[in-house]
Structures are given as structure tokens and as C-alpha cells.
């Protein structure tokens, strides 16, 4: 395909500058985002086996619910009944709420013992996945802005640059696309190989990346868009109908059984399975129920499930994320739901999650390799001395990418030990992550990208391998109080971490090669004897 050379040049600069400014932020977003695919497994792994109270028999949920509602007024505001084997049968927030970002949420868990008496426990929410999700949504940029984290808006802006980078990348790749799409030219030097794989991954996962870019922009700036839209709408309402709502006072004793609620949801959404039921504002004039339902065969709107919203007393369905003949979602609802599902990767069950995990890591690779290509292009080919900006960018690239990975590995390695002490574990996670991240950044700048990349990878491998080592300690010395994996998901988390260690080991081999035996004029080259080199430079 032929494209005018001035257009090509324009879009090449555009790709370079949008890529280099947004790339590292997006790297963190994608790396952490890939991990969020397994957030429930991660939480299960990070909490002791007795953290969730034992599930009750299927017909006992109603008995337990009645006891909870009559004994805890807080539960009337919002209570969740779960039917999943791995979670407590009933839970409700004692402090904080499910919405928003808070590190000291406390949740009551309730179950029945063998005599049929209610047992309740107040537990801090230990959500390792919350930290991962926080990094995913904010890239670890601290501070609040309005009702969201400042980092969310920063990533929103990065997503605009990302979209432009995608379009411009495709535009200036078009002329050579057909010729060299599947070419992975190893023999033409490392740079060619990086460029080819960057293009291959970018083009192959382009639809995924376009969806992610657009959804991130909407997640970050929907307030702005709704604000603009409300001007467009004028007097027309955006939501709701303005029709008079019937004021009915409901009596708690008239609450249908959970089974009836379940059936009502399944009649509306056949083929689904009910995961949990949340009841809220039961004593108010507007009580509501959210039935969380799952299916592996459709695209789900939420990260983990679909929803049916209904009145718990009349069982009238208000709305749902499931398309149903009697519902009124139509094509508009279907498109909106698809956007959410395509961002969250909540379709196709386990397979979909793995696919998104791989594509998320692929995205992280895209941004890392983009920076490498930038560095290779700008370096001076004939001299040992490279420009300050090249060194700065190399240090930053290594500092951010390894910093994020080392920070997360450190949190995973220490998580179980942290749970032994009596403190807020979520704040401890933050301290560990930021200490490691900032320490890595500082070391990358002090030692230089080339030298630090070896050290950093080694540290990452050690931290990753500490995870299965912890489990070994837990099995050999159970008296310490940490625990080993006790489910398939837990085992999966540990195997995944070992996988990361293996990948890093493979990278380490190549990095060592690049640093000690690579091209001398590369910014990655360092002779083995570093002191001499420094002395020469000082003279």
C-alpha cells in the first residue's frame, strides 16, 4: 500500500512521541491488569484457609439470613448471600463499603455451626488483588482528584495518547505490512528483532488494544461525557422516567425466600448460575436486590459476573446486564455491555481469562519493546559516549518496568508473613510496593540501566522464588502460622509466579550477553571491570 511520504513522516513522529510519553504508564497498567484476571485466585491465595467461614447447606441460607437480619441492623443496609463454596455464606460491611477505594474496610462474616447457631466474625478485608487493581487503574500515581484517584485521570490521558499511537503505528506500518508482518528477523540484529516483534504483537492484538484504549478513556472521563450529554439532552431526562414512584412500605417478614429470588433471576436469565445475592436498603422505601449470575457462554458485563436488579419484595426485575426477550436492553444495551465485557475479559470463563492475561502481558511487552526501539534508534552508532537523554530514558525504562515487577513480587513474597502481625495489611502492602518501586528507580539511575538490569532481574527472580519457598516453610513448619496453597487456584498462583521467575531467568541470560558481550557502542554495553571505566571517564 502506498502512502504519501509526508503523511508517513508525520505519523511516524506522532507514533514516537505518543508512545514514549505514555508507554511506561501503560506498561504498569497492562502488567498489573494482566494479573487482575486472576484476582479472586490471588485473594484466595493471600488469605488463610479459615478466613472465609464454612459454607452452609443449600437450604440453610434463609435461616442464617433471618438470624443475621434480626441481630445486626447494619446488615439491613446491605448484605450479601454467597452460594460459592470458597466464600462465607453471608457477609456485610462493618466498616467502609464495597464501593470506592479504602484500605481499612472491615467485613462481618457469618455462618452456622453444627448445632445451627449463628457464628459471626469481623475481619479486615485483605485484598491483595485490591493493590494489583489499584496499580492497574492508576499506575501507582498517588493522590485523589474528585471522587477518583488522580492516577485514573492520568491513565485516561495516557489512553488518548495510546489510541493515537495505535492509529499512527498502523498508518506508518501499512506500506511494509504485507511484506514483513510475519517476519521475525533475528539475523539482522537485535534491533530488527525487537522491531519485528513489536509490530507483530501490535498488529495481531490491535482490536484488543483499540477496545482497551476507548474503554479506559470512558472509565476515566465518563463524568465529562455525561456532563456534555446533559447539555445536549436539555430538559429530557438522561436516566429514570420522572414517573411518580409508588411509595410502598415493605415489611421484612414479607421478604421472599432466597430460593424465590434465585428462581426469579433464573427465569429472567436462563442458562446462568446464581453466584450471590446482595440485598440492600431492606427497611427503606426503595429496597433492591442485585443477583450476581455467571455463565461461561456469554459476554458478561462485570469483571466476574452479570447482574439482575430487582425489587426483593415484588421480585419485579428493574434492569439487567443480560439481554432477554422481555427486557429492553436492545442493541444499545448489548453494545454497552460488550464494551465492559471486552475490557474486563469476562467471557469464555477460564479460557477467556487466560487469553486476556496473555494479551495483557503482550501489551506490556509492546510498550517495553517500543521504548527499546526508541533507544536503539537514537543512540549514536559510532561512539561509546551516548547522549544524556538516551541514558535518562534507558534508566527510566528499566526503573519503571522492573520497579513495578519487583514491587509486586515483593508484595507477593511477603504477603503471608505480613498477615502474622496485627496491623492493617493493606497499608503494609502499599509500603512494601512503593519502597521497592522507588528503590528500584533510584538504583537504576545510580547504577545505570545496563548494570542495574542484571541486578534487578536477579532480585525479581529471588522474590518470585520466595513464594514457593514460603509454602515449603509453611508445610515443614506449620507452627509459624503461614499457610501453603490449599486449592487448585492457590497452586495456580504459585505456578504462575514460578513462571515469571523462569521468564526472568531467560531474560537475564540475554541481558548479561547484551551488557558484557554486546555491541560496544550500545547504551547497554558495560565492560566487566567497571571501576576502570569510571576512572577513565573521570580523567
Amino acid at each position, binding site marked *: 500500500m502506498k502512502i504519501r511520504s509526508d503523511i508517513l513522516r508525520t505519523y511516524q513522529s506522532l507514533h514516537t512521541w505518543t508512545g514514549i510519553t505514555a508507554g511506561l504508564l501503560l506498561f504498569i497498567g497492562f502488567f498489573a491488569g494482566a494479573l487482575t484476571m486472576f484476582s479472586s485466585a490471588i485473594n484466595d491465595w493471600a488469605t488463610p484457609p479459615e478466613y472465609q467461614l464454612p459454607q452452609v447447606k443449600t437450604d440453610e441460607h434463609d435461616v442464617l439470613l433471618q438470624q443475621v437480619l434480626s441481630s445486626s441492623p447494619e446488615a439491613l443496609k446491605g448484605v450479601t448471600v454467597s452460594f460459592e463454596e470458597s466464600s462465607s455464606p453471608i457477609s456485610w460491611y462493618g466498616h467502609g463499603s464495597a464501593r470506592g477505594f479504602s484500605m481499612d474496610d472491615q467485613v462481618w462474616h457469618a455462618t452456622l455451626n453444627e448445632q445451627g447457631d449463628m457464628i459471626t466474625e469481623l475481619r479486615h478485608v485483605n485484598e491483595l488483588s485490591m493493590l494489583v487493581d489499584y496499580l492497574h487503574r492508576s499506575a501507582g500515581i498517588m493522590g485523589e482528584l474528585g471522587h477518583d484517584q488522580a492516577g485514573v485521570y492520568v491513565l485516561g490521558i495516557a489512553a488518548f495518547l495510546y489510541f493515537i499511537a495505535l492509529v499512527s503505528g498502523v498508518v506508518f506500518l501499512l506500506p511494509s505490512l504485507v511484506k514483513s508482518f510475519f517476519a521475525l528477523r533475528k539475523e539482522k540484529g537485535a534491533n530488527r528483532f525487537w522491531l519485528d516483534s513489536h509490530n507483530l504483537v501490535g498488529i495481531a492484538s490491535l482490536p484488543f488494544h483499540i477496545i482497551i484504549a476507548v474503554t479506559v478513556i470512558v472509565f476515566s472521563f*465518563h463524568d465529562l461525557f455525561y456532563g456534555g450529554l446533559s447539555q445536549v439532552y436539555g*430538559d429530557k431526562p438522561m436516566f429514570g422516567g420522572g414517573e411518580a414512584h409508588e411509595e410502598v412500605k415493605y415489611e421484612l417478614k414479607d421478604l421472599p425466600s432466597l430460593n424465590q429470588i434465585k428462581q426469579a433471576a433464573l427465569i429472567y436469565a436462563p442458562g446462568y448460575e446464581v453466584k450471590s445475592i446482595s440485598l440492600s436498603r431492606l427497611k427503606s422505601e426503595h429496597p433492591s436486590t442485585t443477583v450476581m449470575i455467571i455463565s461461561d457462554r456469554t459476554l458478561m458485563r462485570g469483571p466476574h459476573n452479570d447482574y439482575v436488579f430487582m425489587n426483593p419484595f415484588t421480585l419485579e426485575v428493574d434492569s439487567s446486564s443480560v439481554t432477554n426477550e422481555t427486557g429492553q*436492553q436492545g442493541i444499545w444495551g448489548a453494545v*454497552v455491555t460488550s464494551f465492559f465485557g471486552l475490557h474486563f475479559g469476562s467471557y469464555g470463563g477460564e479460557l477467556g481469562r487466560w487469553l486476556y492475561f496473555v494479551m495483557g502481558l503482550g501489551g506490556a511487552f509492546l510498550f517495553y519493546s517500543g521504548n527499546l526501539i526508541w533507544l536503539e534508534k537514537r543512540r549514536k552508532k559510532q561512539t561509546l559516549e551516548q547522549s544524556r537523554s538516551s541514558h535518562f530514558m534507558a534508566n527510566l525504562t528499566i526503573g519503571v518496568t522492573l520497579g513495578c515487577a519487583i514491587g509486586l513480587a515483593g508484595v507477593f513474597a511477603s504477603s503471608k508473613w505480613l498477615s502474622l502481625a496485627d496491623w492493617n495489611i493493606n497499608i503494609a502492602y502499599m509500603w512494601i510496593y512503593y519502597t521497592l518501586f522507588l528503590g528500584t528507580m533510584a538504583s537504576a539511575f545510580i547504577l545505570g540501566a545496563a548494570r542495574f538490569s542484571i541486578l534487578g532481574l536477579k532480585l525479581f527472580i529471588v522474590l518470585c522464588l520466595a513464594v514457593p519457598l514460603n509454602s515449603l516453610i509453611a508445610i515443614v513448619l506449620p507452627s509459624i502460622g503461614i499457610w501453603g496453597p490449599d486449592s487448585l487456584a492457590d497452586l495456580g498462583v504459585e505456578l504462575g509466579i514460578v513462571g515469571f521467575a523462569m521468564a526472568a531467568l531467560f531474560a537475564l541470560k540475554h541481558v548479561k550477553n547484551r551488557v558484557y558481550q554486546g555491541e560496544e557502542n550500545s547504551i547497554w554495553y558495560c565492560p566487566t571491570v567497571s571501576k576502570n571505566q569510571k576512572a577513565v571517564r573521570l580523567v
Partner: protein
Amino acid sequence: MSKTDKIQPHWWSKTLAGVFAGFFLALGLVGIFAWLGPTGLTEQITPEQRSWKTQFNMWMIAPLWCLILSFVYMFKTGKQAWLYLGSGAVLSIAIVYALRSYL
């Protein structure tokens, strides 16, 4: 090709045109669709239909804006970018305003 036919960089003016004029153009286009398109604002619809359609409309602003931002650099000069996108924005917003007033 002579120099005057070539695309001039004009990074700042084109980017600003894409950001500001582009946003209002995207909003205006979505607005026209919201009023005149299917399940439009003049139709009698249920609250649930309205909720989904409003969400859909909101979702459409972002991709439109992104496309404008991505292709604004195709304009030869920053001035042209402002001229075309600006008048497009003014026109589409004016239509929305008229629809709002008369429908």
C-alpha cells in the same frame, strides 16, 4: 510535490484543534444522533430503554473524539484543522441547540 502541498507539522495548533474543536464536534454528532437516531429523545421510551440508550450515547463520544484526534494531523496546516473542525463543531452544536429548542 512542492513544499506548500506537504503536511506542515503544526503540532500544537492541530493537537489543540483535535482536543477542543474535536470534543465539541464529537459531542454535537452524538447529540444529533441522540435526538434524531433510533430510540431518540422524542420517542416514548421506558426508563430502562432510556438508561441503556443514554449509556450508549455517552460511550460513542470517546471513539469519535479519538478518531478526530488521530486524523487531525492529516490537515495540511493547523489553521485548516481549526477551520474545518471548528466550523464542524459550531454547526453540529447549533443543530443540537435547534433540536433542543424545537423538538
